[in-house]
């Protein structure tokens, strides 16, 4: 029974991923105007022969269903077309920008969880106190603030006015380690380069905070209400009655169970986080996939746009699947 239900969950995820891919394919095909014109970017005189060759390479002379099959086939080989801006395969361009986004996303997530957890627990333990009320007000504010404005406000305060942190970019010029991972922080550690590490971290702070703020606000509220519910339950009182310290009862017992509903919310908010990525990268001039997507839209570099949209959506689908699986590990009452 376990394996089959897990299998059906995998299958439904794959189906969704397929649907996403087809959707993206269709959307791109329905763009007004001739795809070839778009590809050429109106670059003027092109011979009929070249036009025909171009059409053939994009399978545009074939019926649409066949185009779809070709598209999927190419996709599996990692080929999503050619970037007209960079004159290289779009997939290559995207991969180059990926580590920057991945590092930012990971940092933002760590920030959000790292602050939301103690905040939510403390607000629950001290419910009704000024701390709780302040945290509640803060979280309301957090979900009301658009990411682009928060980012700009943070830049104005910390970079322009106080000059504590840099205005944008990933690192100080010349301080980028040519590392194996592409994650500047990790590479700096691997190279034991303290200047590079400091530079990378300083540049990471404001964008990560901006990107993670909404998730922080939502998670802390959910965690707070789950904790309040769990703290009232009898098994917590029993733990204390066995001689457990308050800390043990709160963290080992109540929090452990309060995490379960929070994980679902985390999965949902991860989508918001990814969505906000484009805005944050634009505000901070972060050279990642988000910024690439925005500039590609304006440059009409549709292969790249297509690739980025696919990347975001597919990543999100996979992450949701992983979260569903982790659910069964967390809650013994739920089994596949």
């Amino acid at each position: 029974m376990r394996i089959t239900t897990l299998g059906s969950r995998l299958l439904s995820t794959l189906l969704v991923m397929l649907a996403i891919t087809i959707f993206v394919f269709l959307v791109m095909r329905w763009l007004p105007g001739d795809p070839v014109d778009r590809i050429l970017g109106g670059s003027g005189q092109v011979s009929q022969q070249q036009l025909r060759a171009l059409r053939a390479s994009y399978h545009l002379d074939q019926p649409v269903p066949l185009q779809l099959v070709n598209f999927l086939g190419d996709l599996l080989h990692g080929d999503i077309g050619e970037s007209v801006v960079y004159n290289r395969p779009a997939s290559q361009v995207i991969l180059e920008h990926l580590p920057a986004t991945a590092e930012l996303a990971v940092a933002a997530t760590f920030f959000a969880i790292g602050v939301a957890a103690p905040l939510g627990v403390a607000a629950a333990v001290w419910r009704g106190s000024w701390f709780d009320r302040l945290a509640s007000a803060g979280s309301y504010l957090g979900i009301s603030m658009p990411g682009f404005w928060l980012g700009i406000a943070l830049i104005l305060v910390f970079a322009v006015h106080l000059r504590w942190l840099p205005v944008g970019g990933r690192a100080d010029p010349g301080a980028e380690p040519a590392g194996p991972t592409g994650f500047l922080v990790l590479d700096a550690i691997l190279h034991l380069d303290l200047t590079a590490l400091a530079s990378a971290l300083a540049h990471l702070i404001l964008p990560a905070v901006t990107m993670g703020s909404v998730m922080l606000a939502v998670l802390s509220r959910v965690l707070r209400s789950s904790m309040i519910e769990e703290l009232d339950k009898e098994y917590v009182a029993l733990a204390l009655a066995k001689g457990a310290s308050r800390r043990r009862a709160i963290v080992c017992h109540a929090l452990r169970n309060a995490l379960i509903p929070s994980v679902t919310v985390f999965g949902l908010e991860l989508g918001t986080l990814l969505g906000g990525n484009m805005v944050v990268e634009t505000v901070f001039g972060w050279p990642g996939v988000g910024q690439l997507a925005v500039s590609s839209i304006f440059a009409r570099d549709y292969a790249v746009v297509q690739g980025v949209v696919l990347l975001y959506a597919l990543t999100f689908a996979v992450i949701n699947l992983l979260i569903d699986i982790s659910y069964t590990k967390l809650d013994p009452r739920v089994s596949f």
Partner: protein
Amino acid sequence: MRPRLEVRDLTVVGPAGGRPVLLLRSLSFVVEPGEILGLIGESGCGKSLTLLSVLGLLPRGLAVQAGSVRLDGMELIGAPQRAMAAIRGRRVAIIFQDPQNCLNPSFTIGRQVGEALCIHKLARGRRAVRDRVVELLTEVGLPDPEGCMDRFPHQLSGGMQQRALIATALAAGPQLLLADEPTTALDVSVQAQIMELLRDVNRQRGCSIVLVTHDLALASQFCDRIAVMYAGQIVEEGSVANIVHRPAHPYTQGLLACLPMLGRRQQLRPIPGEIPTPDEVLAVGCAFAPRCRHRLQECTSAHIELHEATDGHRARCLLVRHSPQPVGPPT
């Protein structure tokens, strides 16, 4: 010999409808080593609260206003948290009513039963803890103790969960067990088994037990002595024989009259009126007076002490003071 537990003039105050009211009013009772004391009362009389006060685990907003609770001579009221944590589980343990809610759904039975051992550092190493837990699970009568250890609470039946909870309570070897309605949430057939288990625990370990229940019949079968609570006070206490056959307080008499007895056709006589909520309780005099058939003028005008009817049998009633013989047998 020093009593195991000595509660004296325990007064607990809490908010009810915004104002502070007395929930326990000068409560006093004693539990001797090795005896089973039944704490009888209906909902709202404060019997569960009494147990929580002993452990120092009153819910938010409630506080001990006055009184003393001594466990083997050690004062518990006002003791620092660390000292309290050291005796909880180790010298006094509690069993709650609904086993389903008392077990953490995310941890295995083995881990929860053994938790007290780890907290009080009574076993070193996983092997030792595991062996001890198996012993405990066997003692409480769980079939397949080894298998049970690795199961989760939702995989056990109600009766088995309660046995596991008893094992949890016994893990660190307490000499006083507080049982708050341990069988109320269980099926009748299972109830008897659990009560037998508790009796075994009392006999084999010499553990004193305070059994809180609303079931007078149950208490009369298993307890050595009974204390009857009403509106936050003890209104009568004595041996089971005295309480059941020669009840002195009108409330106790009323309770007994409410009990249907197998094999006898009788008219059940309910006690008129309703249990007062904490803020409705009379400030002076007997709390039961408004509902009492034998009410006197003096009953509501002055504080009433526990008066001795016979040896060890006391009732908080002026009628006992007037005539040492109890007022009348239950009909």
